[in-house]
């Protein structure tokens, strides 16, 4: 057993031993015509923190100073900065998402804030490609049209009875799907079954 420098709660060596819920599932299936079809990839490991706070000026300043990232100011929106991303989950609730080696941790002190570590609570799969939106429409009841759902938007809804966060990155055809960890297998089944029509690749990023 090796113990190394601590960052937040967790040692880096330990961080490397994280096993994703999708570890055994993420294998390529139906190859698409090169350059077309859907590309699926998993983003893992991640640090994720649930952030609660009043959302007022002082709190926003606090977040900016401590996290180095601006709190998104409107519903269904996100902000991306060097340190990571902040997704809006609801009034006075956000999800901080970062690579595990950022300095973000549950122990950060932001006035009036409550932080809860949920790094392991979700799997995140990216769906890329021209047909990504069409494919997601097989399960997602919310309008994903580029005008209604521009880059940076993040919403919560459910797909095939699985609760998800859908985060559209600023790259038009790249959409991240967050789902609770225990549903990983079913989510994966849904993703691959829905992508089959277009063909898909699974890649490591």
């Amino acid at each position: 057993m090796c113990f190394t420098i601590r960052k937040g709660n967790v040692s880096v060596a330990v961080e490397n031993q994280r096993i994703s819920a999708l570890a055994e599932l993420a294998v390529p299936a139906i190859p698409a015509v090169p350059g077309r079809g859907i590309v699926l990839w998993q983003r893992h490991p991640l640090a994720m923190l649930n952030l609660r706070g009043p959302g007022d000026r002082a709190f926003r300043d606090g977040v900016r100073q401590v996290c180095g990232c601006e709190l998104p100011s409107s519903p269904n929106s996100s902000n991306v900065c060097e340190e990571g991303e902040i997704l809006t989950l609801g009034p006075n609730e956000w999800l901080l998402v970062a690579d595990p080696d950022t300095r973000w941790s549950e122990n950060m002190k932001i006035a009036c804030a409550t932080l809860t570590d949920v790094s392991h609570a979700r799997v995140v799969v990216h769906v890329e490609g021209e047909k990504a939106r069409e494919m997601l429409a097989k399960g997602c009841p919310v309008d994903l049209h580029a005008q209604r759902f521009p880059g940076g938007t993040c919403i919560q809804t459910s797909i095939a009875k699985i609760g998800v966060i859908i985060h559209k990155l600023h790259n038009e055809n790249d959409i991240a799907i967050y789902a609770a960890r225990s549903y990983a297998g079913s989510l994966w089944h849904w993703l691959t079954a829905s992508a089959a029509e277009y063909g898909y690749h699974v890649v490591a990023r």
Partner: protein
Amino acid sequence: MMLIKCPHCGARAVTEFTYGGAAEIARPADPVGVSDAQWTDYVYMRDNPRGVHDEVWQHSAGCRRWIAVRRNTLTHDVIATADPGKLPHR
């Protein structure tokens, strides 16, 4: 299929919400001080109107917030939504 405007997430299909019953049926402030009949009125009795009804729903597949919804139980028109306790007076 109804569309309910979550004050936080925007208009969403009813399937994203969980019904919570009549809005804010006042819970007796001093349960011990009220009669059995008054207490069980609160627990069991409902106006159940055919028409405008104030009720609560949770946006369970979305932001998880409980919201107040003013809705017509006959036509299913959603008249207003707000945070609990914030519906305009009728």
